[in-house]
């Protein structure tokens, strides 16, 4: 395959080089499989196929001549709405279950049964505990942690009428949710109810289904994800600005390379500690390596980067290519976004693949289950095996492409406040004066249907040029970092107003806000801004984008953003266009209900225009100058 085809697949140099190598090495990648899948099934792309029951499966003819109802009688509106609801349920479940695992570790720490873990940010523990009404004053951290964990577990259940952290949302928004009947009651409950309602013969009003889908998404954004972020901070520390480096160039030819891939910091944190163990480092040197080089992939990588500056090897579409370097001694995975092909790719090299979660096993991987009681020991043993594996590396197969790019990560609500001198006022002033036109969240995954990293970087570049501050997370954050947008020097690439603000604060115009559950940091910041202005979130000059999204989690994120009042533009088209009613509501009608809506726009340049016009429109609505 020629270079042109590679560069149609990715804008990154390391990606192109490794694609060429993967072809030489006979390794199939996600792009090859996408090609093999063409054409995709149109019923499924339109959301018009239904496999929910065994009177079916059914599909609706979009042209109107064939069947217009499933066996049960569901029409295209109902089927599309049900399918979308189930996507959101899966996405919300994923984030929330990730959060649950953290709460369980928190409880185990409190009980003293998690030897590898501690409470790293006691102040935050106490702050969050207070929000839950847990008595923190004068009590020992362990006791507070135990009560907080229990309170959070209550959020998962169904015994309450509203989630604990909803109090963070501005009053008008909460009132709106109540009015629409979409205030989330329990994290598991909403997912459970979504599944119930989409069972044959339950909810067959497409609008009613979509309302529950929004409530389910809110149970993620203001529930499961938010708990995941807060407990991660409590256990492992609240991020502070930290320097790091990104792209496959962070791999080291003369060191034992270990990658952690997945989402939760629970496993990766213990691996990180083992990688810094003196005895293991000595052993690595004995084996001829100059050190142990831990790198991150995807969101568990972001978690480590945010808190410790661990270098980042790449985002979702780079996970196979990271193995193709031939320089990886071990990759440990937990869950979410881990392509089941990885084991097969690794089998072409010496890389040892380890799965760590009882929830997620993969072909071609060795399963080593981590639990809070064995994590520290197991991490130690596995890193030792990675060190032993260094000798099996075949130098002829090694190729580490490109020079890594510098970045600053570690932005959180707390650290932004700190950077602003303890109050949001400077930011509000900049917004009001128009130096900063607004702020945008650029989030989400990679998707081989979109040229890798183009969506994120083109959109982000355009936004900052127009003085819009960008907060990014997940794969988007990694893409922008690779593109050099997360360094202070990138202020040069921003419009004059944003450049001035960034330069005076010494921050990049694009702030790395963490992993995909950390999108809630953006929500919290938006809520704080709204409260400071005495407004609802939907009135603020904010917008969100998922230019390269692929996963059900992203659908849930998009839905909770819109339900929270933030306009959101999606790159790839979600499977809803089979119902113009559903499509119309999502991209239009929602505005009347929620003050925000979706848009679909694969071209990042056009997406940027849409976001800018929405931001300017909201500025006018606030009585600020609009362009």
């Amino acid at each position: 395959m020629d270079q042109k085809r590679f560069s149609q697949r990715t804008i990154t140099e390391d990606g192109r080089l490794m694609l060429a190598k993967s072809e030489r090495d006979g390794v199939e990648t996600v792009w090859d499989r996408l090609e093999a899948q063409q054409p995709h099934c149109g019923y499924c792309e339109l959301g018009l196929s239904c496999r929910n029951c065994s009177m079916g499966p059914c599909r609706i003819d979009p042209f109107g001549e064939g069947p217009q109802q499933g066996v049960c009688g569901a029409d295209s509106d109902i089927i599309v709405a049900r399918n979308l609801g189930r996507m959101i349920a899966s996405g919300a479940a994923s984030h929330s279950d990730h959060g649950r695992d953290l709460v369980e570790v928190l409880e185990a720490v409190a009980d003293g049964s998690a030897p590898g873990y501690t409470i790293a940010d006691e102040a935050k523990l106490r702050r969050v505990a207070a929000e839950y009404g847990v008595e923190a004053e004068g009590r020992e951290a362990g006791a507070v942690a135990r009560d907080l964990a229990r309170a959070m577990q209550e959020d998962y259940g169904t015994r309450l009428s509203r989630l604990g952290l909803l109090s963070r949302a501005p009053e008008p928004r909460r009132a709106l949710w109540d009015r629409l009947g979409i205030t989330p009651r329990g994290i598991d409950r909403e997912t459970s109810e979504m599944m119930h309602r989409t069972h044959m013969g339950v909810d067959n009003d497409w609008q009613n289904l979509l309302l529950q889908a929004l409530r389910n998404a809110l149970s993620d954004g203001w529930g499961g994800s938010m708990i995941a972020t807060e407990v991660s901070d409590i256990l492992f520390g609240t991020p502070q600005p930290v320097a790091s480096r990104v792209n496959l160039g962070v791999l080291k030819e003369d060191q034992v390379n270990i990658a952690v891939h997945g989402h939760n910091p629970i496993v990766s944190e213990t691996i990180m500690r083992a990688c810094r163990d003196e005895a293991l480092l000595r052993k690595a040197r004995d084996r001829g390596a100059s050190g142990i080089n831990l790198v991150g992939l995807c969101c568990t990588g972001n978690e480590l980067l945010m808190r410790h500056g661990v270098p980042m090897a790449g985002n979702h579409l780079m996970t196979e290519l990271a193995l193709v370097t031939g320089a990886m001694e071990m990759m440990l995975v937990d869950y979410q976004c881990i392509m089941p092909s990885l084991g097969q790719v690794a089998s072409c090299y010496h890389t040892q693949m380890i799965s760590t979660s009882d929830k997620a096993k993969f072909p071609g991987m060795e399963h080593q289950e981590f639990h809070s009681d064995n994590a520290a020991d197991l991490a130690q043993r596995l890193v030792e095996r990675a060190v032993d594996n260094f000798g099996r590396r075949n130098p002829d197969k090694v190729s580490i492409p490109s020079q890594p790019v510098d970045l600053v990560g570690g932005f959180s609500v707390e650290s932004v406040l700190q950077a602003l001198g303890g109050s949001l006022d400077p930011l509000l002033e900049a917004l009001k004066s128009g130096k900063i036109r607004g702020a945008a969240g650029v989030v989400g995954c990679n998707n081989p249907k979109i040229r890798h990293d183009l969506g994120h970087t083109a959109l982000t570049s355009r936004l900052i040029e127009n003085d819009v501050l960008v907060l990014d997370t997940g794969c988007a954050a990694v893409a922008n970092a690779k593109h050099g947008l997360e360094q202070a020097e990138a202020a040069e690439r921003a419009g004059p107003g944003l450049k001035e603000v960034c330069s005076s604060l010494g921050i990049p115009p694009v702030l790395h806000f963490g992993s995909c559950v950390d999108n809630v940091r953006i929500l919290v910041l938006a809520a704080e801004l709204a409260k400071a202005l005495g407004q609802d979130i939907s009135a603020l000059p904010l917008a969100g984008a998922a230019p390269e999204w692929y996963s059900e989690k992203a659908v849930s994120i998009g839905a909770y953003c819109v339900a929270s009042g933030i306009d959101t533009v999606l790159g790839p088209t979600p499977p809803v266009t089979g119902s113009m009613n559903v499509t119309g509501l999502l991209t239009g009608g929602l505005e009347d209900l929620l003050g925000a809506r979706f848009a679909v726009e694969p071209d990042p340049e056009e997406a940027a225009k849409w976001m800018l016009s929405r931001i300017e429109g909201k500025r006018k609505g606030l009585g600020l100058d609009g362009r």
Partner: protein
Amino acid sequence: MRHLILGSGIAGLQAARAIRSAQPEAAITMLGREPDPLYARPMISHLLEGSVQPSQLELGLPPEVRLISQDEAVAVDAADKTVATQQGRKLAYDRLLIATGADPRGIGAQNTDLENIHFMRTKVQVRDMLEALPGSRRALVLGGGLVGFKAAYGFLRQGLEVTMLIRSEYPLSQQVDPITGGLVRAKLQENGLDVLVGRDVARFEEDGSGRVRGAELTDGTVLDCDVAVVGKGVLPVTGFLQGSGVDVDLGVLVDEEMRTSARDVFAAGDVAEHFDLARDERWVNAIWPEAADQGRIAGLNMTGVPARYPGSLSRNTIRIFDLDLTTCGLVNPPADSGYEILREEDPGRGTYRRLVFLGDRLVGAACVNRIEHAGVLRSLIGSRTPVPCPREDLLRESVHPGGLFPFSR
């Protein structure tokens, strides 16, 4: 109306079929040199392999066609509208079709008249080869073209040691580029065939009883062999047309209706020289599908049903063990002549594709493996229209015909 067809090959047969379908009553006479009933010529190599029975090659004539076999035309009198034959027949016609095909091209080596040195063009010749097989151990095949190939494959299948001798640097040099040729050569060698390139036979050696025993090559090497086949291409059979008033270049010159320069005389098949759609010049493409098509078109025009022949394209499909190869049009254009080449090799899947463009047109294609869509490329070359999609798309294994041609049925 009296139709006379010279030659009982596929061109003649297709003409007879077309005439019969348009004119159920017309008189059709076919004159053929060979003793065998009509058969599918390309299949004779399968006889050599032993993979088919002789009867499986037979082709049926349409009803009421008079077949005169084992006689040949020696002169045509276009003014008098008669044809004289070897056996002294004088055949009168209203419409005449020249479909005498081609004969193998001879070679310059010494002693080519020894026993067990064969051409492979007819059933008779293959029968002779089969008779020579018992007691033969080593076969020598001259020529790396299609016929050489099929002969070599047949001998291998019969358990002989086979050496293939090619004057150029790689097999199929008329059809393919060096990369494809290299793949083919490797595949042949992998399957036990000896391939010698850049050499030719200077002299055959006799075993003392009139049979071939070996060959001395142009570089002085001497090779043993008990049987040899010469596959150095073919030449149209036109000798009997001298003085007939039918214009002949390399082959018989024909127009779009397969008419020759003489009134009511048509020509079709390996003997005819028409126009090559890729090369943009007069050319003889001596291949089966073109012969069949030309025969059909000629037959229709002989009955007055207008039909036009757009031109021919060289093409080949060869399956060499597990390697599939198709070529079409101009695969090896002259260097520095404005042709552009696009190619893609995927060693993992064992595929290779080479496309030749002139301006905005596709003029040649070679595909190694995954050949199912080769016909789409052929019809694009034949259409002589600008490529309607980005060129790179044609490198894809499956070319989407929907985007290439206006949809029919």
